C-alpha cells in the first residue's frame, strides 16, 4: 500500500508541472503584455505612469526576460513565497484574492461531490435491483433530462422559482445583513440556509451519469457466480446484496471521481456566476473579462492542481477499498 502511494505521488509531479506550464501559457497568450494592459487600465482611471515606473514593474515581474525565465520566476515565487503576481482589477496580490475565496469554493465542490453520491448511490441501487419497475423508469427519465440540462440553466430556473415564490432574489451565500460581518454562529446558520441550493444544483449534473454507471455495473454484478455462491450459503438477501455486489459496483464509481471532480469544479464556477456566490468562479470570470491574466492563470493553476490532487486521493481510496487493485498495482 505504501509503495503504491509513493508511486502515485511520484507520478503526479509531471502532471502538476504540465498544469503549471499550461497555466503560465494562458498568462502569456493575450496580445499585449500584462504591463501594457495594466498601464492602460490605470490611464483609464486618470493615472498616468512615467517610463520609470513602467520599467520598475517590468523588472518586478521579470517581464523583460525570455518566457522560460519568466516561468521560472513565477513558479519560484509561488513555490517559495506563495506569491503569484498582482491583480490589477483588485489592486491586491493574487494570492490574497485567491485565498479569500478558495475555501468556500473547495467546500462547495466537496459538498457537491458528497451530495452527488448521496443522491446517485441509493437511486442507482434501487434502479438495478428493481429493473424495469416504475421507479427505474422514472430514474432513467430524470437521468436523461439531468444529462441534458446544463446546470446554469437549472440554477437560473431555481433562482427564478425561488424569486417567484418568495420574492427574494438569491444574491450569494449570505443574506445582506451578514455580507461583510465577521464570522458568528448566526452567520454560519445563514450560510447553511443559502449554500444548499448551489450544492444541489451542482450535484444534480453529475448524478445522472453516476446512476447510469452504478445501475449498469450492479446489473452485471448481481448475476455473477459469487452472488449465487453466497446465496447458497444461506445469507439473507438484503445483506447479501449490500455486502457483495453493491460493494463491488461502488468501486468503479470511486474511480469516476477522477472525472466527476473536474466536472463539479467547472459546474461550481458557472453556477457561482449565475447565483452570484462569493467563490472563485465570479473572480475568474471578472479577471478573464478584464484580461487580468496573472489572476486568471493562477486560478486555473490552483483549481487544476487541486482537482488532480483530488483525483489522486480517490485513486488511493480505491486501492484501499479494493484488494484486487492494491494487489495488481503493487506488483506492476
Amino acid at each position, binding site marked *: 500500500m505504501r509503495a503504491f502511494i509513493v508511486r502515485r505521488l511520484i507520478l503526479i509531479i509531471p502532471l502538476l508541472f504540465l498544469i503549471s506550464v499550461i497555466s503560465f501559457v494562458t498568462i502569456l497568450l493575450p496580445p499585449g503584455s500584462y504591463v501594457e494592459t495594466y498601464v492602460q487600465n490605470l490611464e483609464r482611471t486618470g493615472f498616468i505612469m512615467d517610463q520609470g515606473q513602467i520599467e520598475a514593474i517590468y523588472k518586478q515581474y521579470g517581464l523583460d526576460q525570455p518566457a522560460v525565465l519568466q516561468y521560472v520566476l513565477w513558479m519560484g515565487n509561488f513555490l517559495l513565497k506563495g506569491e503569484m503576481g498582482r491583480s490589477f482589477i483588485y489592486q491586491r496580490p493574487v494570492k490574497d484574492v485567491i485565498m479569500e475565496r478558495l475555501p468556500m469554493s473547495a467546500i462547495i465542490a466537496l459538498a457537491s461531490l458528497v451530495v452527488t453520491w448521496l443522491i446517485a448511490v441509493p437511486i442507482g441501487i434501487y434502479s438495478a435491483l428493481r429493473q424495469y419497475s416504475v421507479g427505474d423508469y422514472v430514474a432513467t427519465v430524470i437521468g436523461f433530462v439531468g444529462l441534458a440540462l446544463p446546470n446554469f440553466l437549472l440554477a437560473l430556473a431555481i433562482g427564478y422559482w425561488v424569486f417567484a415564490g418568495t420574492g427574494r432574489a438569491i444574491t450569494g451565500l449570505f443574506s445582506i445583513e451578514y455580507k461583510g460581518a465577521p464570522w458568528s454562529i448566526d452567520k454560519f446558520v445563514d450560510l447553511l440556509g443559502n449554500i444548499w441550493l448551489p450544492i444541489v444544483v451542482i450535484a444534480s449534473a453529475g448524478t445522472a451519469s453516476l446512476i447510469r454507471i452504478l445501475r449498469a455495473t450492479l446489473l452485471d454484478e448481481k*448475476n*455473477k457466480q*459469487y452472488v*449465487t455462491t453466497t446465496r447458497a450459503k444461506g445469507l439473507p438477501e438484503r445483506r447479501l446484496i449490500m*455486502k457483495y455486489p453493491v460493494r*463491488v459496483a461502488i468501486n468503479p464509481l470511486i474511480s469516476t471521481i477522477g472525472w466527476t471532480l473536474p466536472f463539479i469544479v467547472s459546474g461550481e464556477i458557472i453556477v457561482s456566476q449565475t447565483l452570484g456566490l462569493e467563490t472563485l468562479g465570479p473572480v475568474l470570470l471578472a479577471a478573464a473579462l478584464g484580461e487580468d491574466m496573472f489572476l486568471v492563470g493562477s486560478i486555473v493553476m490552483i483549481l487544476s492542481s487541486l482537482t488532480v490532487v483530488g483525483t489522486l486521493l480517490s485513486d488511493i481510496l480505491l486501492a484501499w477499498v479494493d484488494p484486487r487493485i492494491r494487489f495488481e498495482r503493487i506488483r506492476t
Partner: protein
Amino acid sequence: MPKDNTTDLILEIKNLKTHFILNAGTIRAVDGVDLTISRGKTLGVIGESGCGKSVTAHSILRLIPSPPGEIVDGEILLHRDGEVIDIAKLKPTEEAMRNIRGDDIGMIFQEPMTSFGPLHTIGDQITETILIHKKAADKSEAKSQAVDLLRQVGIPNPEQRVDGYPHEFSGGMRQRAMIAMALCCSPMLLIADEPTTSLDVTIEAQILELLADLQAQTGMAIMLISHNLAIVSEMADDIAVMYLGKRVEFGTTDAIFDNPLHPYTQGLWRSIPSVDGPLEKLVPIPGVVPSPRDLPSGCVFASRCSEFMPGICDQPKPVPIVEADPDHFVACYLYDNEQV
C-alpha cells in the same frame, strides 16, 4: 437400493418441473425428474449440457432466478431429524429456506475463479457462513474453525491463507476453499455442480480424491453433477442419466455401466473411448438436440433414437417409467411390456 433403506433417505425429488417462462415461450428445463439420495452415498447425474442437471441442482437450493424460472410442479423432500420438509413449497427468500442453504445442504459450483466475492477475504466468507448458521460462538472461534477447514481441504499455510483474497488463490486452491466453505456447517448433502470442469486434469483428480476422503470422514451424501462419464463412474454409487429435462435412466453405477438400457445411455457409452477395452470406432449419437422450446410431446429422444418405433415412441403422452431390473429404472417403450 432406494426402496428398502428409506430410513437413510436424505433427499427425495418427485416429478420436479422447473420451467423458464419467457416472452418467447416456456422452456421446460426440468420436466418431471425423480431422484433419491441416501446418507453416505454419491449420486451421479450425467447428461449433455442443457439437459437440466444443473437446473435440478439449483432447484434443490431454490437458486433459480425468478422470474423467469419457476418450480411449477413436484416435490423436493428433505428428510431432516425425522421430519420431512418440502423445499419446493418454500419461498426462496424465506428463513426456513436460508437455514437449509449452507447448513443442511452445501453446494460447490463450476467456476471456482468467480465463486468468491472479490472484495472480502476467503476467511471472512467462510466464517460468515459459520456465523449465520450459529455453528460458532464468536468470530474468533469461527475463524479458527475456518483455518481447520482450510487445512482439511489441503490448503498449505491455512493460518496465513485465511486472510488472503480470492485473487491470490489459484483455481485449484480456490476450488478447495469453496469446498471448505460448502462443508463448514457439516451438511448432510453436498451438491457438486461440475466441480472440476474448469480445472486441469491433475487438479481434477486431487479435488475428486479430496471429496471422496471428506465423504468417508463425514458420512455426507454427495450429488455429483457432471458430463464426464469417467468421473461419475469413479465416484458415484448410483447414476441418473438425464436428457432434455427428463431422467431417462436411473440405477446403480454397475447396472448403468454394465447393462445400459436406454438407447441414449447406450449411445453415450458408444461415444466415449474406453481405456482398457478393445479399440473400437467411436459412434456419435446422430441428430441434434431439439430446442427445449418445442419439445416433442412423446419421447424426447425419439428424433435421434436408433430404436425408434413409429406409432409407439411418438405417442403424445409421457413415456412410462419401467423398472426393467430391480432398482434399475428406464423411461423407454422398449422395456414396457404392455406396449411391445
